[in-house]
């Protein structure tokens, strides 16, 4: 009797662990439609969302052909739109392999949090998808280029964004870092911008520039050069290039400098009760291209080049900071966060006033540029008779 009850209780416990785990979800892989990317627009009336998904359509046949296919459906909320979509498509939409989410400007201006909540809360979608803002009038047209170009455009965009470390054209932002930035104090969010460009008669999306947010609302854009400066300040440059105009007589001689290594340090300094930020940049570059015969490789020429490059970098960076301060008043550089980390005491006093303080914050830039080599040639080309 005792042993029967023992066995019974073991069976009961086992049965409970098996059936209460909620792991009952057998679905064949070929009944799913894989979503590669999603784009979110506002409907024309403005009260509904337009959810666009780019799906990978796999053709049945001797060779497997994968095509990009887009589908747009309206809904009151994003989940509503998704549900409407499921009732159209025979196969169930599967979001676990989604790589990007594109927001339209309208959506971003209205407040990113509204849509980001679903992206993050949804159990299938990953937290590391790339979030972008479309510079075009809608977000869906970015994904729609996929069907015209024979590639899954979302996967391509994802790869482009993953390469940003060495290209420095746009800030890469995964969903979870975006959420961190939105919620963090002393830092404002930025997102990469994607726009359509004509390349050889084909229209392709290109990721260049930055969308600047204040709180969770889009307030403006930075162009490519400004974006690179932003990335310099955020210490996110690990490659890319600087183009330096020659000085004086050689104004027409452009020199391309390839960035080999970069390290940026933000230093908040308190001087006479005034907060200052000092940006120290140490960059190692290589001469990659000299459009002329001027000798920038021997020491005097090199020093001149270093100096002029440092100067233009300083000027450019200070301009960007000033522009952001005056135009957007949004601390996208994370100065506040740095102050918070280095001077927690000071931060406590100024935290609530930071919105106003940032605007007048004094920022100084101290670049230190080193030319390490001149690629494969040790001399500029000469022009003889």
């Amino acid at each position: 009797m005792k042993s029967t009850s023992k066995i019974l209780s073991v069976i009961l416990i086992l049965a409970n662990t098996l059936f209460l785990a909620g792991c009952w979800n057998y679905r064949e892989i070929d009944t799913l439609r894989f979503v590669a990317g999603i784009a979110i627009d506002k409907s024309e009336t403005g009260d509904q969302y337009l959810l666009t998904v780019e799906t990978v359509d796999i053709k049945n046949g001797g060779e497997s052909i994968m095509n990009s296919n887009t589908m747009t459906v309206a809904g009151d909320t994003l989940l509503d739109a998704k549900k409407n979509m499921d009732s159209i498509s025979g196969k169930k939409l599967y979001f676990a392999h989604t790589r990007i989410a594109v927001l339209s400007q309208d959506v971003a201006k209205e407040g990113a949090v509204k849509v980001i909540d679903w992206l993050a809360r949804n159990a299938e979608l990953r937290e590391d998808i790339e979030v972008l803002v479309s510079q075009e009038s809608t977000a869906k047209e970015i994904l729609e280029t996929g069907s015209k170009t024979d590639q899954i455009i979302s996967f391509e965009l994802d790869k482009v964004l993953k390469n940003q470390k060495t290209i420095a054209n746009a800030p890469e932002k995964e969903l979870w870092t975006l959420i961190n930035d939105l919620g963090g104090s002393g830092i404002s969010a930025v997102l990469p911008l994607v726009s359509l460009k004509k390349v050889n008669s084909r229209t392709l999306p290109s990721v260049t520039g930055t969308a600047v947010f204040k709180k969770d609302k889009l307030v403006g854009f930075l162009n490519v050069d400004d974006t690179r400066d932003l990335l310099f300040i955020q210490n996110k440059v690990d490659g890319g290039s600087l183009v330096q105009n020659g000085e004086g007589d050689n104004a027409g001689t452009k020199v391309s400098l390839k960035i080999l290594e970069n390290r940026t340090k933000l230093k908040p300094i308190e001087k006479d009760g005034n907060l200052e930020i000092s940006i120290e940049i140490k960059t190692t570059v290589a001469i990659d291209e000299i459009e002329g015969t001027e000798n920038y490789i021997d020491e005097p020429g090199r020093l001149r080049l270093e100096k002029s490059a440092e100067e233009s970098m300083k000027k450019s960076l200070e301009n960007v900071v000033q522009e952001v301060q005056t135009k957007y008043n949004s601390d996208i550089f994370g100065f506040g966060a740095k102050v918070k980390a280095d001077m927690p005491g000071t931060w406590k006093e100024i935290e609530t006033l930071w919105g106003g303080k940032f605007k007048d914050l004094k920022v100084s830039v101290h670049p230190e540029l080193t030319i390490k080599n001149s690629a494969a040639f040790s001399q500029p080309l000469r022009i003889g008779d």
Partner: protein
Amino acid sequence: MFSFFRKKEEKKAKTENQSVLSASLKLTNSVEANIKLFKDIFTNDDTLIVRNFQNKYLKAAACCVIYIDGMVNTEVINENIIQPILGGNLKEEISDGNLLEELQYKVIASSDVKEAANINDLVESAINGDTVLLVEGYKQALIVSTKGWQTRPIDEPLAERVVRGPREGFVESLIINLSLIRRKIKNPDLKFQFKELGSSTKTKICLCYIEGVAPEKVLQELIHRLDNIEIDGIMDSGYIQELIKDAPLSPLETVASTERPDNVAGKLLEGRIAIVVDGSPFVLTLPFLFVEYFHADEDYYNDSLFTTVSRTLRMIGTFAAIFLPAIYVSLTTFHQEMIPTPLLLSITAARQGTPFPTILEAVIMGFLFEILRETGTRMPAPIGQTVVIVGALVLGGAAIEARFISAPMVIVSGLTGITALLTVKFKSFPIILRLLLLFLAFLMGFYGIIFGLIGLVIYFMQMRSYGVPYLLGTTAFDENNIKDTVTRTPWRQVHFHPRLPVVENHESDHRK
């Protein structure tokens, strides 16, 4: 488990000796009558040879040899028994009444001559290949050892070939097998203890162990289990292996078998006990632990690093052989998010248009592989080729082409099958477990697999082989027990073969 044997003990008495038939029969003084006695016992057995002869000088020395054709060395009978008795001048030597004694001591040239009167002993000796010599006027007979039947030459064992190491293997003869073991270990502590099993076959078995090294408890337990065996015939050591294993219904072995004398000698040095069975080239050794599944004889002759690598490979292979289909099924039907995107897409592309659900594909392919394997094992070599071609081309290539089965599943089941052959000592274990895990994976995905794994570990942990924990050397770090497990300690650090620890009171362990 032990109580299983105990219960049988009570039933035992009923099958005491079947051979009561000749208890009443007794030898008489007359050779004629004695011959008739033998012929009655061996009715309808034409292999019984009876040869009457007489000494040419002494008429009283009328003798008769009885033996079984094919079991004896006739040369020995001719030259060492018949010849001396026929031609020798026995007249002077023989005084009245001691003819038998004189023959035994002075005439017959054989190393082993015994006097016997019991008809049972005589019949048994004749069956075993000895010659019975009847002499007129005596109620006793002589048993002359003339065993000599054809045996297979000592050969390299087919199933356990090595590149490096001794190439001799056991044969079917008990005595030759014992000599092979004795030649490896020249130590008087090496004991050979004979026993007889099987009420009809009377198969001789021999327990080998090194006294002082083999744990007494294991030996006692083994003898106890052997004594409880009730069976009429033992055809091969496989019978005994199954009869004395710890968990009769488990797919796991707790007794090992090998065809290699070097393997047996090594295990004897470790304190294990070997059972040599007459008529079987497979010698049993015990206790047998789980890690031994992954050991090969060559491991001990190759460099220890290489041994470690190949043992690791075997372990990974076995893991794959058991878990691969289950993992594939749970990945593709439950956890699609865990597959890297490009792989997911190509699996999806391969699955397009295939009619069966993944789980059914897995079962079908597993079944097909087992059929092919089984056919391959039993086929004569020339037909084997056909099996390979049909298996590879028709079932593999064409099935994918016709979109009956998806290509990734063929890869998975192929891998599973190949890796299962990495450790051939496993027989039913991977097949049964694979199916079980497949079922769990089908029900619950990885959650189910983990469930199975936990159950497996619990099952392993409670298992014992003759009182020695089955997972010895793999679950806890003990300097002495891990010398020969996944890794092999270089010989320079091993002065003695690692000895088996024996858990005290292992029997009461089970009774709790």
